[in-house]
């Protein structure tokens, strides 16, 4: 009996999820291809003049990546909100870590990779069609792939939050997760606000998350955390959310009863 992690079982779970939902996935991806194509067509067609700014397309990328990704992540463990589907999911002979990892693979790997792939292909076709007209001028200053890395830093922890939301809440998981993120964000902002107000007097301005400028009349001061504290804090803020949220999802799944 194999009760420890098994890659062959993980592969079986990934395949099972794909084939159990093949029709839904296929239709959803086709719909996304249609919508993205339509948006690119509108962007190219309704552009006034012959100047095209390729960076605009990154806005389109983010505009769909975040909401569609969150909806997708939120459906990952939504089966647990339904007694029949949840029973089927919990009774599959696999470890909890294999089941969680299957969800992670779909929400954090397959979705972003497929979405980016589809987007890049549609983008390339659109750019190619634009450049067919010699009078058109397509400018591209910033690098799409470096912008993508910054987007991923926000996207991945938020996806993990929506994964947790799909396990944590029984019903209306998407709306409740959005509300929970907004409430946690607001509480965090209020704590920072009252903390800085109690520490500093006069007018305040945040130069960054770790540096504050205060001034009273002509007297202005800048307060910053030391370099190493700033670096450690930045690292923690960037990378700690995803593992923390995924560990919370694991324990929530472990205690799930239906």
């Amino acid at each position, binding site marked *: *009996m*194999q*009760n420890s992690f*098994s890659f062959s*079982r993980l592969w*079986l779970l990934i*395949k*099972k999820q794909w*084939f*159990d*939902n093949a*029709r839904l996935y296929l239709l959803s991806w086709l719909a996304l291809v249609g919508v993205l194509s339509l948006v690119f067509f509108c962007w190219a067609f309704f552009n006034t003049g012959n100047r095209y700014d390729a960076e605009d397309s990154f806005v389109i990328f983010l505009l769909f990546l975040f909401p569609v990704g969150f909806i997708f992540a939120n459906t990952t463990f939504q*089966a647990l909100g*339904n*007694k*029949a*589907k949840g*029973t*089927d999911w*919990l*009774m*599959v*002979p*696999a*470890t*909890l870590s294999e089941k969680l990892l299957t969800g992670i693979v779909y929400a954090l790997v397959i979705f972003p990779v497929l979405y980016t792939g589809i987007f890049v292909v549609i983008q390339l076709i659109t750019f190619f069609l634009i450049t067919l007209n010699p009078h058109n001028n397509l400018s591209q200053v910033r690098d799409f792939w470096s912008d993508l890395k910054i987007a991923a830093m926000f996207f991945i922890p938020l996806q993990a939050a929506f994964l947790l939301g799909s396990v944590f809440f029984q019903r209306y998981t998407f709306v409740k997760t959005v509300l929970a993120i907004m409430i946690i964000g607001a509480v965090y902002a209020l704590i920072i606000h009252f903390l800085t107000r109690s520490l500093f007097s006069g007018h305040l301005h945040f130069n960054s998350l770790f540096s504050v400028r205060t001034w009273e009349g002509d007297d202005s001061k800048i307060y910053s955390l030391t370099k190493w504290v700033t670096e450690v804090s930045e690292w923690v803020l960037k990378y700690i959310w995803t593992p923390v949220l995924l560990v919370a999802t694991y324990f929530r799944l472990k205690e799930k*009863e*239906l």
Partner: protein
Amino acid sequence: MITVNNLHFSYKRKKVFNGLSLTLQPGHIYGLLGKNGTGKSTLLRNISGLLFPDEGSILVNGEAPRLRRPSFLQNVFIVPEEFYLPDITPAKLITHHAPFYPAFSKEQFDHYLREFEIPADQTMQSMSYGQKKKTLISFGLACNTAVLLMDEPTNGLDIMSKSQFRKVIAGALDENKCIVISTHQVKDLESLIDRITIIDDGKILFDQTMEEITRKLHFKISFDQHETAAALYSESSLKGNIIISRNTTGEESRLDLEVLYKSIILQQSNIQSAFQQ
């Protein structure tokens, strides 16, 4: 095989079990009977690890269900009352679901599908509720798990399917398998189960083998007023008075599960007295 010891379970404020203990052995088909809301499904869900006991312990083949280890899940299959099957064909079920069960037999699955007259190339969406249920029962049996739990398996099955169900289940039992069938449709289990456990109000009201029941009790239709009055339980019917009396002659009678069930619910002490001697 299954040991339930001092089980306490409640849904928020509603207490379901208050110290229930039970032992189920392989090689038997257990009938778990009881009124609606007495905890039959809850007990099956506790045994399968879908619900966790508040107190007490459950062991299935020496494993705690709440841990939901693969070695446990490979040996327990539940056919729940509310079930889900993905919209794929039974053939795809073999490809994508069966590999999780090491003892799964494709031959058996095909055989059960034939018995139930289920087309193997039809997707679940195009099947009726009864056909889907029979597919799930076939799959559960073909997984060859040591424990097979079925919650109201005959609900939604037509008369022919119910008789197919009895035939299939009777043929599937072996000395290593423990089948537990929870139902309130007692007639459906007649001639199938070999031990009957009646739950009421979170307690075990009655727990006897069919052999012991027919050895101790005698079921008959009587027109004799004195015999009816002396019976442990009686009820009138169009055919006469159906009575349960002590089996003093050792002669075996045809057990009427529905009448037995009613007698235990309505006159438990009378029936129990026959087993206390």
